[in-house]
């Protein structure tokens, strides 16, 4: 797995470990990114790589949340506008935008367009809590939230998010 890119993007990683040195229990390593000022996390084992936004080839006749396809070393990968999937307004692609390539299974991957990739962090599992009350439909994509270092991190359940689509 090509995680080198994320590593370099997380210079504060070591410092964070110091903050949490008191905690020795199990933790989940997540890639943190932002969408519309909220912090989201996806477990690293689900992520193949993070790419800068290159040319996205639009495909006519696709659902609106499909931005198009990109060429990842010879493999054609669908890119989804994550903002639209969470009912947020669309936003221009900026220099900070990144495409997170998520593994659905052995063979299939999908790209998620996000506003900004922050860092890779170990989040102690005792910080997680299940999402209590929300609209049923929206929470399907969300595994839980973690209050961690003044941030509320929304953890995305990638498997659930795509179980509906990967059939298509």
């Amino acid at each position: 797995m090509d995680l080198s890119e994320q590593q370099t993007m997380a210079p504060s990683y070591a410092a964070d470990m110091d903050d949490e040195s008191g905690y020795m229990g199990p933790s989940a390593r997540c890639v943190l990114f932002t969408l519309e000022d909220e912090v989201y996390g996806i477990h690293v084992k689900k992520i193949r790589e993070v790419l800068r936004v290159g040319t996205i080839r639009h495909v006519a006749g696709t659902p609106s949340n499909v931005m198009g396809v990109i060429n990842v070393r010879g493999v054609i990968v669908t890119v989804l506008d994550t903002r639209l999937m969470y009912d947020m307004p669309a936003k221009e692609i900026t220099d900070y935008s990144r495409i997170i390539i998520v593994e659905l299974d052995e063979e299939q991957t999908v790209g998620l367009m996000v506003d900004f990739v922050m860092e890779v962090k170990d989040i102690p599992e005792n910080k997680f809590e299940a999402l209590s009350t929300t609209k049923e439909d929206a929470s399907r994509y969300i595994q839980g939230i973690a209050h961690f270092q003044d941030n509320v991190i929304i953890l995305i359940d990638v498997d659930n998010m795509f179980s509906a689509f990967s059939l298509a």
Partner: protein
Amino acid sequence: MDDDILQDFLVEATELVDQLNEQLADLQQSPEDPDLLNAVFRGFHTIKGGAGFLSITALIQVCHRAENVFDKIRNGDVAYDAVAADVILRAFDVISDIIDAMNGGATAEELPENDPGLLNELDGLTAGNKPVSSPQPVANSVASKTQLTLDEDVDPDGDMTDDEFEALLNQRDMASGGDEEKAESVKTGLSLEADVDPDGDMTDDEFEALLNQRDLMSADGELEDEVAAISPPLSASNPVPKPQPAPKSAPKPSVVTTPPAAKAAPKNIAESSVRVDTKRLDEIMNLVGELVLVRNRMLTLRTAQGESEDLSNAVANLDHVTTDLQNSVMKTRMQPVKKVFGRFPRVVRDLARKLGKEIDLELQGEETDLDKNLVEALADPLVHLVRNSVDHGIEMPEDRLAAGKSSNGTVILAAEQEGDHILLSITDDGKGMDPDLLRRKAVEKGMMDELTANQLDDKAAFQLIMGAGFSMAAEVSDISGRGVGMDVVKSMITKLNGSIDIESVLGEGTRMSIRVPLTLAILPTLMVSFAEDNYAIPLTSIQEIFDYDSDKTNKIDGQMMVRLRDKSVPLYFLSDWLAPGHVNENDKVIIVSIGNQRAGLVVEQVNGQEEVVIKPLGVMLKKVSGYAGATITGNGSIALILDLPGVLSRFQH
């Protein structure tokens, strides 16, 4: 039941069934060829071995009897005559059906019980061609476990159970397996039986399992010695140690050397072959595809950069090597077309019998190689065409004689390579087709008006039979004539980027030719574009390209049409769908033909031909109609490959 073992068994059994199919067909020609008889015998035996291990009772019953019959035949006790062939072929069908059903996910318990009549007939053959009805010493209760027909001179009251006997037979066959000397006749085998003490400590199932396990292992040729070592204690009826669970020792088919049936082939060539999982071949194929793309990029760069001679040479070198590599990899996926042709002697024979016709089938160019996927994809259309030839093409013997032909009809199935295409043809010397009748029929069915019909040349008239719902048979038979079929054949061939052509002379015969590309992995396309976006259109469907000229178009009933040599062809503006709002300039019209229809696609720019590797579109896009996939072009950008039937239906609905 361990799923892996079952899968391994099914892979092997499916191959064996294919081989048996070919061998049985060959046997029609040379019914006394000892190598062939041995090969068939081993084929049945090996399937039975695996089936026994997995307790697929229905399969064991049939294989076992078929094996017995061939044991007799190869020893010269019974002749492989028409009667025997009939029964054996029916037995083979049963086996083939069972394997198919299991490949489709049926478990051993779900399989239907065997027809006791067939089992009796098989037993009848072993008993020396006696009439089927004669009662056998051992009655067949189908539901019971594997049974064995005892020879007449065997005392059915012997102490041994059937299973033990069965096991002994297995053991004997294995001990002599691979040996050039034929296994001793059943009688000799039976003398062994007398020595066996049925009170041995081992249960039948254990015994059976042990033997089968050994059978599997000896398939690798490693355990011949051990077989010999184990034999004496068996006959001395000492308790045999409980076998280890066999699964681990069962060979994985993806990497093992050729199976025993192949080993039985007379030549030594088989020894140098390796079985490779097709998935791995696909991977290599993909990587080569990548390399082709890189090469294409280099070629583009070279033309762009121009000058450096060294670079130019290096790229030219790369070009050559890549092309060679691509060809050799392609060859590894090639299979002789014999794989498909092998089933036809059978198909024709059965059909001719049923219809009371006399038909000789001639196979030509069986050794022609083509892509494995194609071999599989062509099987169904070919079967359909051959059935058509036999059913509609060839006349009844008396009609043939009346027409001054010999009473035997001939169907020739031929394959040959023609550049990067394969040409398959089915030729019959039957009654041919009458183009005028076809024209009339088309008018009757309301497919076109009389004027249009009369304008069709003969070739176009023959193409009519490939329209949906068009049947020439006056009556519908269970063989053909429902008017579904030819259109299905046509669409299957189109899907393979192939074309189908019909020539016919009334009273003299019909020839159907199918042209398909050698491989499915690489597709010759025409690159077109709208502004920056590239699209690839499969070249096989393209008939011609000309400049768009608004003077030559008409709007008829809301549909734009273009006049082309006194015919109007519907015109679809691809930009309406692919680049809405885009202002077109320098339009070109590409005339494509899909099935029976022609259409003009208006595109902005034509960029020339390119061979592309088809890649699947990503998740969520596979069901979007109009695309066959995507590819990466010489300059590294993505081009979408259009699926023309999908594109047309997009415009038509």
